[in-house]
């Protein structure tokens, strides 16, 4: 119907020789390279410096005194660091597992039930914590857990685990949901056609295809939990420092390259699983059509 009308501008453009439309190109902007280099330097130079000085032999975090592993050794043998590291790993593991399990159910619930009233509201509720300032969540949890502590007398790590699980859910949810939405639903229909019960179809088809999304969500949740300061600072009781809050505490005293060594270790701890995940998912053929 409107084909002729639509093609007229195209024909006009074709008829004007030498005036080809060039698409917008960011790399063509003046100074693009300089800005890009500056941004990368700003992002990575401090991290590079941090890593380099973690191998410093002297007591200073700014003056180079030769290569040594003494600060790694110091951190490794530091009782407070050991405790904080174990606490961090335990909390991050529990939070990653629990939040991913809940996020998987939430993602399936919000994408597989078809349209229902309030679906957007639920979606919003799941993702809103991403927008709420962490300091607000921290204060709110402090008050609530304070009450619970008073009633139950329980003082353990459970509060931190609960809090971390809660704020990790949206991070775990997003990649799982993205994966579910690109998944071909005919595959589940095909499983049912081939005599799979709803549970078998989920177990044998949906879950394996969802696995990369679940792994990504879990990794993200783990890293987010490992790194958290603000909420942990509000929720923890005395003697419940995690690695980040312990490091923050150190800044009130004299800083030694021990902090650099711990930071470098945390960096490695987050980069290793991410790299492994990237390599594993890239080697496998794509799992959806």
């Amino acid at each position, binding site marked *: 119907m409107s084909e002729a009308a639509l093609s007229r501008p195209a024909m006009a453009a074709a008829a004007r020789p030498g005036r080809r439309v060039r698409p917008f190109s960011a790399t063509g902007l003046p100074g693009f390279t300089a800005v890009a280099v500056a941004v990368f330097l700003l992002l990575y130079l401090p991290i590079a410096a941090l890593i380099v000085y973690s191998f410093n032999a002297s007591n200073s975090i700014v003056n180079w005194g030769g290569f040594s592993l003494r600060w790694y050794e110091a951190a490794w043998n530091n009782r407070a660091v050991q405790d904080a590291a174990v606490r961090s790993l335990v909390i991050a593991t529990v939070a990653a597992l629990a939040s991913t399990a809940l996020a998987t159910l939430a993602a399936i619930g919000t994408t597989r039930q078809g349209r229902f009233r309030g679906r957007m509201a639920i979606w919003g509720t799941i993702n809103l914590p991403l927008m709420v300032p962490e300091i607000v969540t921290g204060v709110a949890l402090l008050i609530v857990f304070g009450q619970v502590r008073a009633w139950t007398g329980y003082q353990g790590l459970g509060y931190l685990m609960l809090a971390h699980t809660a704020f990790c859910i949206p991070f775990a949810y997003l990649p799982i949901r993205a994966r579910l939405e690109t998944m*071909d639903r005919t595959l589940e229909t095909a*499983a049912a056609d081939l005599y799979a019960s709803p549970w078998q179809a989920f177990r044998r088809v949906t879950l394996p295809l969802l696995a990369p999304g679940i792994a990504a969500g879990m990794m993200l949740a783990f890293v987010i939990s490992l790194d958290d300061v603000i909420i942990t600072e509000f929720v923890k009781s005395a003697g419940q420092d995690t690695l980040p809050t312990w490091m923050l505490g150190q800044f009130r005293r004299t800083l030694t390259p021990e902090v650099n060594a711990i930071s470098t270790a945390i960096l490695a701890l987050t980069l290793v699983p991410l790299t492994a995940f990237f390599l594993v998912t890239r080697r496998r*053929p794509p799992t959806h059509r």
Partner: protein
Amino acid sequence: MSSPVPAVEARSVVKLFGQGNAAVRALDEVSVAVAAGEFFTLLGPSGCGKTTLLRCIAGFETPTDGAILLGGRDITAEPPNRRRVNTVFQSYALFPHLTVRENVSFGLEMLGRPRAEIRDTTDRMLALVQLDAMADRRPDALSGGQQQRVALARALAPAPEVLLLDEPLSALDLKLRKEMQAELKRLQHETGITFVFVTHDQEEALAMSDRIGVMSGGRLLQVGSPRDIYDRPATRFVADFIGETNVLSGMAEGAVARLPTGETLALPAACSGPVTLAVRPEQLRLAPPWEDGALRATVTGATYLGTDSRLRLRLADGTEMVARIPSVPGGESVPAPGTEVGLAPVRGAVQVLAE
């Protein structure tokens, strides 16, 4: 056709999508019975309800009204995984995380068959579709035609009572398509499974089917053998959709119908009142204009097609007609445009349509 109980039957199936006035009537009182071992084709244009009918049989849709019977048993309320029916999906829907072998054995595993049986049947199916060499590959390492054959093997492996195929060949190029048509016929012959095949391609339907059901707008218009459907179309839609046809309107006066031109055509059976008539182009013969029973026509154009020529003509009242005139070796060529000719239907060519 040997068994008195149909392999699969739809009884007055109605399927509405949406609610109230906005509802789409995807199936409108569809009743059909497919005999055991039959190759039955649902033919109709896109959007006529073919997929919806298959999905009702497979259990992916619940009919708004009516019943689905499998081997005489009402299965309308049963979930898809309890129905001994398998589907070859248009998009194949192969499991991308499983190998070809694991795809083919999936149904048998879900049915809880013993290991040895699963292995043997899977081997047999892979051999049947000539994919033994590909057994350990993943589907995305296969060509379209190979994926198609995996989908077939996967659906045939559990030996369903009925196999449903939803336009399985539409994604293949012409050559592969012809090969797969032959392959499908062979597979049906070797397995003896009842096939319900969906296509919008009338040639494919005529070439492959034992019987065809022609659908339009959610209704099943006519069911019959390819010959029945082609030679005795019941309605104008069927006549038009299956091959090319000439449609004429007239007034029946006993054994003949009087056309608007004043000429008469012999009817296959006596009737009266206004009638719509159909004559296939290849069932018209050129005759001298004065011959008894021939319609006077003027040639308006001709296209040589090798085995025959397609002649376009106009009747005295302006009605456009098409005739296919066989080529005769060394014979004279077809009349030039402007020539006055007579058009005589061969015996039994005139069909009365139920509009």
